[in-house]
């Protein structure tokens, strides 16, 4: 045998004869087998490789952070005046607001007081109706008191000889518009908010769907209705005014923020980092409380349906033949049964709640796993080690879990992490069928669904929660990929 330690040049005879060059090692016995480095098992190895992947560590940290905020966050929610949990507390003075650190708000009575419409008692109803050319709009059109988001009250002097008035409203933003346009051009007056059929009436309060971020131009015209033909004639010109709205807060809520708040005072309102929804609830708070349920579902449902799908797919693939045929036909039937009918039925049978939600979500996801995994098993079962194991008489379940499953780990982790986003979107979809969480409880899915209905009008309401969702999902994906790499021994030393 050649000694590898020898240098490449030829040894001289002298050197060869010098016995001192070679000292025999004493026999070391068991010590030769001693591992001088620490033992790294499969799991530990995976963990080490995972921790070397910086992006994966960051993703994991993000997931843990989001989960922690979900668990701990609600402890820090402000108290509400009536004791409802903050995330469910509605503030109708503050609906559909964009993100804010606290706007100035006017303190008002707890329930907004609506003025009764005033009527001119001296109005002369006997005056003959005016002809179309003679019609003039009412004069002295003005805002009464403070225009708030709860209502804009306007008043005018009535016109003799008319059937009533029409009030229009348009927004200042958008295509350029001026008061003069509204006065002269009927096409610019915008939306008709009221028809006042009593010509003696002198005030009107508009309160419908007001947006405090907007300035409005109101206009009023007089009209005459021919009693015989019901033909309507409207005055050509209008009277117009511009109003900007003040945001309000109820006294009770104000005092919760500032103990000595008084009606009529302007204080700094609540901060809503993500804004508020259509019922004035804080969106961030709803997202935070929703985290718990969503994480629970996102981790549980894919795992359960994966396990079912894996067993089913593996049995089908390994047994093959008739069993495979029948099992796959059952999947076919389940796949084509009208999903919506099944959902309705599950709802009728199990009612509302997290339990029926899990069942419904699993019921519709495991067949997908089963089909894909069966395909993979069909491929794997022809591989030698499975053959060998079979020949040695290993039971089916042991083949599945010892030989098949580990080889499917990559695809399983990818599918598992890919299902998480679907869970969150379908959780919201199921709530439409009475299968979701109980209202007003929030989940990410329901928050997004509520906002999606008007994402063009209030984009922040949708895109802020959506970006949190997307970031979390991206983290799950990245982590999933990293896990797959880490757990697959074949990919060792490749990063």
């Amino acid at each position, binding site marked *: 045998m050649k000694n590898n330690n020898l240098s490449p040049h030829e040894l001289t005879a002298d050197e060869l004869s010098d016995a001192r060059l070679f000292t025999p090692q004493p026999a070391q016995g068991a010590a030769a087998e001693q591992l001088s480095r620490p033992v790294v098992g499969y799991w530990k190895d995976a963990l080490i490789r995972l921790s070397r992947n910086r992006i994966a560590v960051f993703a994991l940290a993000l997931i843990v952070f989001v989960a922690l905020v979900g668990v701990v966050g609600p402890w820090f929610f402000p108290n509400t005046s009536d004791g409802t949990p903050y995330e469910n507390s509605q503030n109708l003075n503050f609906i559909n607001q964009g993100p804010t650190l606290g706007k100035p708000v006017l303190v008002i009575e707890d329930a907004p007081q609506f003025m009764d419409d005033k009527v001119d008692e001296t109005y002369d109803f006997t005056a003959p109706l005016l002809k179309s050319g003679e019609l003039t709009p009412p004069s002295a059109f003005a805002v009464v008191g403070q225009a708030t988001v709860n209502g804009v009250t306007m008043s005018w002097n009535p016109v003799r000889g008319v059937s009533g008035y029409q009030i229009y409203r348009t927004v200042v933003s958008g295509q350029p518009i001026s008061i003069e346009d509204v006065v002269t051009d009927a096409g610019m007056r915008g939306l008709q908010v009221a028809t006042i059929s009593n010509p003696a009436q002198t005030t009107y309060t508009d309160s419908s769907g007001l947006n405090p971020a907007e300035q409005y131009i109101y206009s009023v015209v007089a009209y005459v209705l021919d009693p015989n033909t019901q033909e309507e004639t409207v005055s050509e010109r209008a009277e117009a005014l511009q109003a900007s709205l003040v945001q309000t807060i109820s006294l009770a809520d104000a005092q919760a923020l500032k103990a000595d708040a008084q009606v009529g005072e302007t204080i700094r309102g609540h901060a809503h980092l993500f804004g508020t929804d259509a019922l004035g609830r804080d969106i961030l708070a709803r997202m935070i409380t929703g985290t718990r349920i969503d994480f629970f579902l996102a981790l549980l449902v894919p795992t359960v349906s994966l396990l079912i799908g894996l067993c089913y797919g593996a049995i089908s693939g390994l047994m093959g033949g008739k069993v495979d045929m029948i099992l796959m036909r059952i999947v076919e039937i389940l796949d*084509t049964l009208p999903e919506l009918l099944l959902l309705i039925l599950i709802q009728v049978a199990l009612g509302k709640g997290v339990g029926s939600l899990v069942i419904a979500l699993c019921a519709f996801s495991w067949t997908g796993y089963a089909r894909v995994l069966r395909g993979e098993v069909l491929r794997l079962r022809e591989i030698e080690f499975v053959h060998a194991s079979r020949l040695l008489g290993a039971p089916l379940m042991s083949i599945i879990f010892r030989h098949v499953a580990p080889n499917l780990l990559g695809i399983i982790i990818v599918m598992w992490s890919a299902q998480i986003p679907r869970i969150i979107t379908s959780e919201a979809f199921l709530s439409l069928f009475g299968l979701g969480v109980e209202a007003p409880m929030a989940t990410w899915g329901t928050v997004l669904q509520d906002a999606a209905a008007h994402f063009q009008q209030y984009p922040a309401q949708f895109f802020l929660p959506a970006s949190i969702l997307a970031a979390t999902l991206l983290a799950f994906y990245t982590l999933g990929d990293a896990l797959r790499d880490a757990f697959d021994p074949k990919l060792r030393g490749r990063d």
Partner: protein
Amino acid sequence: MRLLRFILQRLFLAVITLLTLFTLTFFLMRAVPGDPLMRTKEIPEETRRNLEQRYGLDKPLHQQYFLQLSRIFIHGDFGTSFRTVGREVNDIIREQFPVSAGVGIVSVLIGVTTGIALGIIAALYRNSVIDRFAMFLCVAGISLPSFLFAFIFQYSLAVYPLTQLGFNPDTWLRPAGWGEPRDFIMPSITLSLGIIASITRMLKSQMIEVGFSEYVKTAKAKGVSLARLVVMHQIRNAILPIISIIFPILVFTMSGSLIIEGVFGIPGLGRAYMTSIQNSDYNVIMGLTVFFGGFLIIMNLITDILYGVIDPRIRVG
């Protein structure tokens, strides 16, 4: 010969599967609250009885079952809709399925080609900008609702060019409508996003796994060119699981999407299916379910045969 036997056997099983599907759906429909004659405004009792008689809903359940069974499986007649008076389910399928199928096939074509391309690039250039971008696209494609994309495309591809850039409405894409080749474009792109997302992700992971397998290493060592290595060795093996998802995706996409049809005004089957379920329109639900069932069975059969063709290691049957 073996393949032929396999196919015949599967076709025989298909009949049994369809019968089971029929039976389950029949009782499922009737177990769900509500019936076709239930309206927001209740139909007066006498008229209701007259209507039940007219539609044969007053017969005992087993009679209704066998009547419908023989009508569908012997005469091939799915009956008429309870909601749209005089509309035959066979006509609904004949007229509206090609529409959904057309849009579906185009979007699967777009989705699969783009998805495969992105998946391969993302796998070959891991952790590159393209990889990250593809990943982001996957997350967005799966997690954001499709109506969002539908509206974004409708606005940016049709409304904006037409109103702000002064494009000719006769030739440019219209926001909604059906009947011309241009009407395929926006719905197909929208529908393809989800497909791109699933395929990219799956293919990428498969490519990576295959990339470390012995035969790829061997091929590399032998000096096979990169192109040949990727195409002949990596892709061919990585694509197998993709096939198992492409056909379900195809069936799913061809059956029509409620949202896409609603936003782009497409007379497809997605709308018909949803409306039928909302209205407990028994004949339409049954017709569409059995039709899709048959369609899925055929597609699954093709999948299984293709498995054998692409991967000779797998024996069908």
